[in-house]
């Protein structure tokens, strides 16, 4: 049983990192960013190719994938998304769905549907503690994921840019009156969201098998976690990630693994109805009538 809990916890850490960028973009820009799935996938491929072509350790390639996706995110945010944000959430949702189709199918053409994986020397090694196995890689992923989430939280509260992002999230009009350049904040927020997705993707590539659609499963998790934790809430994403990881893990041994997705999506709908601001979050946008 304790093994089940450890599994769930370790998975939950990664889920949290997957969700935090998604939650940020939704909370600040009011954009449900379907392309998040592709950014995770691209992060994973960058790490894969750096490992395979240059032998770069997957954990060391995280900054590279983050930087690359930051640039891509900034470009998409400023050139495409900013033009459509005012049309409202549903239009941007459809738009990012289109972007996601382009990136995923582009990756399919470039790299084929082949399954690929990274196996560094330390893969599969682990720590045995009282009959519970803690694989090093997954532990590292967990620690890094939590660290990223914490650093990001500091960035939001301690830097000028972070404060501008928060102000924009709370009230874009007021922020604009106070001299915040909304368009720039949006582009940056989107870029940061993409970079966080890339970090998650790099870690996904060490733990899982990668292919052009690898991001989709994580996107559905990000949905559930964001709703669970509250839009734009960073502690919420962390808590939501861990809760979902544990819930899935427990569902596997109780009702059967087949039901775990049905359960998490029923949970999603139920939380939306009962507590749309999430467990920890404030409601930034929309909500209940």
């Amino acid at each position, binding site marked *: 049983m304790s093994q089940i809990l450890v599994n769930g916890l370790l998975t939950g850490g990664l889920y949290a990192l997957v969700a935090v960028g998604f939650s940020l973009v939704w909370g600040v820009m*009011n954009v*449900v960013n379907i392309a998040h799935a592709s950014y995770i996938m691209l992060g994973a491929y960058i790490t894969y190719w750096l490992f395979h072509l240059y032998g770069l350790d997957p954990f060391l390639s995280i900054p590279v994938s983050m930087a690359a996706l930051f640039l891509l995110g900034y470009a998409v945010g400023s050139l*495409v998304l900013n*033009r*459509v944000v005012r*049309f*409202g*959430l*549903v*239009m941007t*949702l*459809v*738009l990012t*769905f*289109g*972007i*996601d*189709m*382009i990136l*995923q*199918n*582009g990756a*399919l*053409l470039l790299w084929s549907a082949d399954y690929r994986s990274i196996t560094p020397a330390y893969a599969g090694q682990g720590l045995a503690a009282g009959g519970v196995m803690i694989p090093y890689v997954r532990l590292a992923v967990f620690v890094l994921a939590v660290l990223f989430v914490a650093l990001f939280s500091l960035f939001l509260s301690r830097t000028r840019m972070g404060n501008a992002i928060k102000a924009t999230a709370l009230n874009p009009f007021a922020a604009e009156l106070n001299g915040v350049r909304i368009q720039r904040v949006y582009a940056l927020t989107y870029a940061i969201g993409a970079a966080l997705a890339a970090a998650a993707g790099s870690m996904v590539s060490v733990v899982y098998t990668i292919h052009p659609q690898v991001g989709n499963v994580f996107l*559905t998790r990000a*949905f*559930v976690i964001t*709703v669970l934790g509250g839009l734009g809430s960073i502690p919420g994403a962390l808590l939501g990630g861990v809760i979902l990881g544990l819930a899935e893990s427990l569902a596997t041994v109780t009702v059967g693994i*087949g*039901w775990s*997705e*049905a359960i998490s*999506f*029923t949970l*999603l*709908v139920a939380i*939306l*109805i009962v507590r*749309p601001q999430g467990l920890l979050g404030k409601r930034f*946008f*929309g*909500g*209940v*009538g």
Partner: protein
Amino acid sequence: MNGSSMGRRGAGLILGAVVLAALVLPPFYLSGYWVRVITGLLMYGALASAINIMVGLAGYPALGNIVFFGTGAYTVAVLMVKADTPFFLALAVAGVVAAVYAALLGAAVLRLRGAYFSIATIGINHATSELVTNLDGLTGGGRGTIVPFFPGSIEAERMFFYFLMLALMLLATGTVYLISRNRLGYGLRAIKADEQAASVMGVNTTRYKVLAWTISAGLTGLVGGAYAYWLAFLEPPYVFDIVMSVKVYIMAILGGAGTVIGPVVGAFFLELLSELIWGRFLEAHMLVLGIVVVLVVLFVPRGFVDLAGRLARALAGGSASRRAEGVRSDG
């Protein structure tokens, strides 16, 4: 009624006759492949019209509406396979089951607005798909389920499904037309514009929203049921397919959400384009479709009907009054 509107009515009748002929004649002249392609267009036209009731009229982005397609499809499959139900009876039940499902969900889910509602519908679709997968004793689960064949010759089958889908499309589009001329349509448009204002004007917003979703779901369920019989084989991912759902949504937007004919135009356009793209770019088909989606959002966010209206006004010069053609949409 003055002379010019009589003239317009006459022109409308002629146009209607031409359109009707264009819809009825194809299966008698085209090959099996093209009949199948057009049957597919009609199916998408019906789905786009059905989602239009929610998206275009009520302004509720039911992005996961495909859940009723899957529900309808599986209702027909289970009834025909497990209970030897005749097809049309099963189809009717499929429409009812989907409608009732929406009515039950609606009371709770329609309290959500905008993206929250969208995401709830996506979640419902996913949860329902998983449920169908897990109820494998009834549905065959991940193994899928085989629906009995249409009993009759190939030609009869071709005609049957062509006219079945045509009938469903006309039913769906006709429903949108009727709704938009009626109190329900006005009420829904008021809800779309401002729900609070609508409610103090006497519109029972809760009932109207649930009613709209029930009708939309019922129509979508009927189309799903017909699809099950047409394809003769179902797996949950095929009929609870979120990509298909978004495609239908885009069709409605592209043609003009809220207009009567726009979504059908959008459906025909996108499906035909899809067919053509597919022929030219075997590998990159989905990629090109993604580009189309992005371009639509960037450049035609209010749809073709709105675009055509604006073009017509521009051509007619500034003197043309801003008259609504049919039911106007407003983002």
